[in-house]
């Protein structure tokens, strides 16, 4: 890493070029770095005082990249990263992405929250008044106590949030456990459908795929609905890992995506355009060809899987034409043969192209199949993503070098232990996506109709929410207009606390809004990884400004007020916890540096000692000794558990399908079937300008990464739309305004809109969202099994504004 100018401010250097510049020029590089600017050398100028601190990005990207703050007079002068000028291509450097490099702007954003605030207007109106910390704590304590006394702990909810990750970020669950518990949750907005379906088929450890560098040896890489360079943009996670793989891969890559995404740029011939949400139809047709052409690995399927054909069906389903093969060959489930001709009009891919791809899939050894979380973030997401996992199984390209299970790529990570939440006395859990339902009609939600876990039903509606660093109350939730109506009704959820750095759309719904510090404004630590691992240990870049406090300190005040300080803190400061958690981590991983060393070095990196990680390697080697934790111990292509769920759950429509085998379904009628009124499909994607909604308010990023709807020239021309036009996209849920990107990089019939733009509508007026947030157009109806967010399943119409 670069430590050439550790104590010298760039600005003072620029200002004093007369003196220092001349020395540097005369002495050359060695003299300049070694003796004039080197560590421990007396400063050449008083103005040159500069402090350098390490910190980490904490947004759920999950790059959590390194940030190197150059600080002068207690203000951040500029933000660097862990880098060096002559880094070898293979060197692990968690370089911050474009967003990380704009933190100075976010730190000083005019919309930064500086003081505790209380709401003075209507909920969601965004009118606040500064109050003291004493008043804020008093109000929260009395309201929390009132609600717990009146409704019980189950009425208190901690919404899903992605704004902060670190070893102490999840202090709220711990705090609420000290107070007697809270309504729990499961899942997330990232991969709920895939996380739910995976354990049924691959077991509880099946979610993590092989690392990307495992694909270097593959003869063919199939990438379904994924853009690793956009979704995790740092210098030591998927962005870099993918660039590295592209350069080192021996085989070719095929990108199956409605969008020629940024990961495929420069190699456009590898793009195989497909209609959104139809991956399962493509995979079913490929399966058909593999079967017909005898390219399946029957021995693997019989040894490692159940349910491919009747040979390995469980007793309960044997002899009933319920196997996967029956489904594919037209003798089962829907009695329709899944030929390439069947799949062509669904997917938009010609039968010939499907046959050619199937031939490549059938002969490629090794075959690396990977999916992003796009194919699963849909109303048919569980089945769509599961179907992709069939290709490695059918070909036996599973658990071997150069293969992947069809899941998203895994990582080699350093996982630092996190603050213990304790045991929540409230057992009931809801899917995170259903919190608005639980506010509105929680007592009607049951295990069978809403996926309530840990209890048969909810006893009480959500009456209070404690929302830390999250924008899922509205902006990132489905159907913002619907969420607004529920949240704005103060008789439903009676009290909302929000901790934030800036005024997000969700923050507008706070009754009390508390000013948060970034994790790099406090001591913080995190471990993560991609192909290789890293850990970042940071010290505050500046002193806390205004009246901002850490979450931990604000909860400590609240705990003291409510009589649980000792239980919450155990007498420890946040840094005491971080140190203790790190020591526990280190006890299990003796290679790690000491705490003091870690803090001194800031960035610790480690290469995967095995080179790469192969998913299901142990199971493939010995399926008996290393049996999966599915009921059969094998990969379940037919799941009796799912058959049971399908038979017993109360679903909300005939279009909601739960199936014991991976089948193609179009999804929900109102979201996935274009109509005369809404003839286009509309899908979200992750954009370089934001991680979810984080950074959505940073003007510099908005300028360089404008909020646009990608629309094919064919669709644009029909609507008299040209590049750069301001357009309106609308459907039954709402209407947004944004710019048109007229481009052949998106398939005809589909509009793509990057998710996470900041909602900006007059909610007491026309509700037209001038911020272009896709969630003004998404539903709050959950997917059938995971009850997850189907936010890429939308239909719409587009008009010129």
């Amino acid at each position, binding site marked *: 890493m670069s430590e050439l100018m550790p104590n010298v401010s760039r600005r003072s250097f620029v200002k004093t070029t007369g003196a220092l510049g001349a020395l540097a020029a005369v002495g050359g590089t060695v003299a300049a770095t070694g003796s004039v600017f080197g560590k421990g050398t007396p400063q050449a100028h008083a103005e040159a005082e500069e402090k350098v601190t390490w910190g980490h990005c904490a947004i759920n990207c999950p790059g959590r990249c390194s940030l190197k703050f150059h600080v002068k007079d207690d203000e951040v002068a*500029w933000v660097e990263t862990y880098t060096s000028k002559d880094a070898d291509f293979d060197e692990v450097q968690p*370089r911050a*992405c474009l967003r990380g490099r704009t933190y100075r702007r976010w730190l000083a954003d005019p919309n930064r929250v500086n003081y505790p605030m209380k709401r003075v207007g209507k909920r969601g109106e965004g009118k606040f008044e500064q109050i003291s910390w004493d008043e804020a704590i008093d109000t929260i304590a009395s309201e929390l106590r009132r609600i717990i006394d009146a409704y019980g702990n189950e009425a208190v909810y901690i919404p899903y949030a992605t704004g902060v990750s670190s070893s102490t970020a999840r202090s709220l669950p711990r705090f609420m456990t000290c107070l007697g518990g809270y309504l729990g949750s499961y899942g997330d907005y990232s991969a709920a459908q895939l996380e739910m379906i995976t354990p049924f088929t691959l077991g509880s450890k099946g979610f993590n795929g092989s690392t990307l560098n495992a694909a270097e040896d593959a003869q063919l890489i199939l990438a379904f609905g994924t853009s690793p360079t956009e979704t995790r943009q740092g210098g030591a996670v998927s962005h*870099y890992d993918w660039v590295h793989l592209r350069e080192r891969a021996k085989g070719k890559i095929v990108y199956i995506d409605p969008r020629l995404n940024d990961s495929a740029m420069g190699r456009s011939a590898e793009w195989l355009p497909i209609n959104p949400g139809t991956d399962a139809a493509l995979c079913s047709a490929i399966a058909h060809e593999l079967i017909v052409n005898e390219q399946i690995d029957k021995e693997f399927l019989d040894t490692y899987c159940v349910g491919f054909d009747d040979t390995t069906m469980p007793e309960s389903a044997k002899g009933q034409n319920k196997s996967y093969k029956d489904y594919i060959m037209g003798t089962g489930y829907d009695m329709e043969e899944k030929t390439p001709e069947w799949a062509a009009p669904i997917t938009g891919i010609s039968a010939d192209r499907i046959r050619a791809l199937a031939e490549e899939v059938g002969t490629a050894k090794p075959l690396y199949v990977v999916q992003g979380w796009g194919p699963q973030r849909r109303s048919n997401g569980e089945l769509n993503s599961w179907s992709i996992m069939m290709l490695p199984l059918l070909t036996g390209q599973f658990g071997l070098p150069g293969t992947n299970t069809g899941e998203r790529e895994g990582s080699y990570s350093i996982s630092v232990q996190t603050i213990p939440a304790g045991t929540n006395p409230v057992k009931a859990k809801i899917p995170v996506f259903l919190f608005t339902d639980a506010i509105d009609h929680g007592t009607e939600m049951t295990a069978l109709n809403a996926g309530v876990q840990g209890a048969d039903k909810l006893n009480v509606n959500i009456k209070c929410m404690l929302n830390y660093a999250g924008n899922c109350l509205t902006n990132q939730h489905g159907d913002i207009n619907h969420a607004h109506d529920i949240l704005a009704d103060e008789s439903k959820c009676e009290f909302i606390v929000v901790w934030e750095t800036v005024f997000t759309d969700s923050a507008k719904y706070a009754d009390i809004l508390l000013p948060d510090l970034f994790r790099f404004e406090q001591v913080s630590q995190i471990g993560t990884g991609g192909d290789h691992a890293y850990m970042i240990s940071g010290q505050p870049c500046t002193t806390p400004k205004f009246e901002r406090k850490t979450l931990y300190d604000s909860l400590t005040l609240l705990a003291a007020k409510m009589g649980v300080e000792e239980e919450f803190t155990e007498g420890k400061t946040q840094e005491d916890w971080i140190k203790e958690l790190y020591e526990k981590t280190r006890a299990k991983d003796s290679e790690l540096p000491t705490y003091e060393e870690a803090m001194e070095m800031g960035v610790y990196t480690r290469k995967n000692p095995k080179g790469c990680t192969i998913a299901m390697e142990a199971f493939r080697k010995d399926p008996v000794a290393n049996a999966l934790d599915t009921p059969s111990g094998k990969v379940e292509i037919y799941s009796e558990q799912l058959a049971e769920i399908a038979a017993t759950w109360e679903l909300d429509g005939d279009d909601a399908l739960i199936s014991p085998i991976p089948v193609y379904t179009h999804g929900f009628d109102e979201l996935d079937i274009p109509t005369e009124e809404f003839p286009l499909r509309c899908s979200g994607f992750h954009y370089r300008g934001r991680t979810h909604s984080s950074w959505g308010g940073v003007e510099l990023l908005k300028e360089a990464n*404008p909020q646009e709807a990608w629309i094919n020239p064919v669709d644009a021309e029909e609507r008299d739309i040209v590049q750069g036009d301001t357009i309106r996209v609308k459907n039954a849920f709402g209407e947004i305004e944004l710019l048109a990107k007229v481009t052949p*990089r998106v398939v005809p019939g589909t509009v793509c809109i990057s998710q996470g733009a900041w909602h900006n509508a007059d909610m007491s007026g026309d509700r037209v969202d001038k911020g272009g947030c896709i969630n003004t157009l998404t539903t709050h109806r959950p997917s059938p099994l995971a009850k997850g967010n189907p936010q890429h399943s939308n239909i719409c119409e587009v008009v010129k504004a």
Partner: protein
Amino acid sequence: MTQYAFYFDGTRCTGCKTCEMACKDFKDLDLGFAYRKVYEVTTGETTRDAEGIIATSCVSYPFSMSCNHCDDPACVKVCPTTAMHKDPETGLVSVDTAKCIGCGYCHMACPYNAPKVDRSKGHSVKCDGCADRVAAGEKPVCVEACPARALDFGTVEEMSALGRIADVAPLPDPAYTTPNLYIKPSEDALPFGAPNGKVVNPLEVE
């Protein structure tokens, strides 16, 4: 004299704009100004036939570029005050703000969209190759920032050994100013002057 040059690996660049933002932070640039910009070239068609089958001839690639510190810089040639000048030691082109009158000729003359007049400052502004960092033995901020390792900087001898002179769209014929930009083009890259090699993201780079 040592002539410095940039290197751009088009097979690695993903168009992420970290280079642009790192520069803007380091150089403290506000809205409307970027010394390094990322251009998108896209051409071809993606269509759907009567049966609903999609066909594509789409080609798309990003190109990251700052000032190319040309051997024969157009901006220097047209500057009426000699404010725009090429450093005799490093070959880096920069603005002497004391001499610059903000006439904007450099902005109009440069075929690489590098200099721009900052009306609030009253003079032209542009990439100076991070001359101070380079003098201190470092590389430009953009180069060290790249998560994809697509950029490099060094002497023209070193950089020309890595790739060929920048001769792809949307850039002009390198013979015009002899840019000190060497590249490894992506598979998709079109030759300079290709009629379909147009910049499709003007809003992001103007």
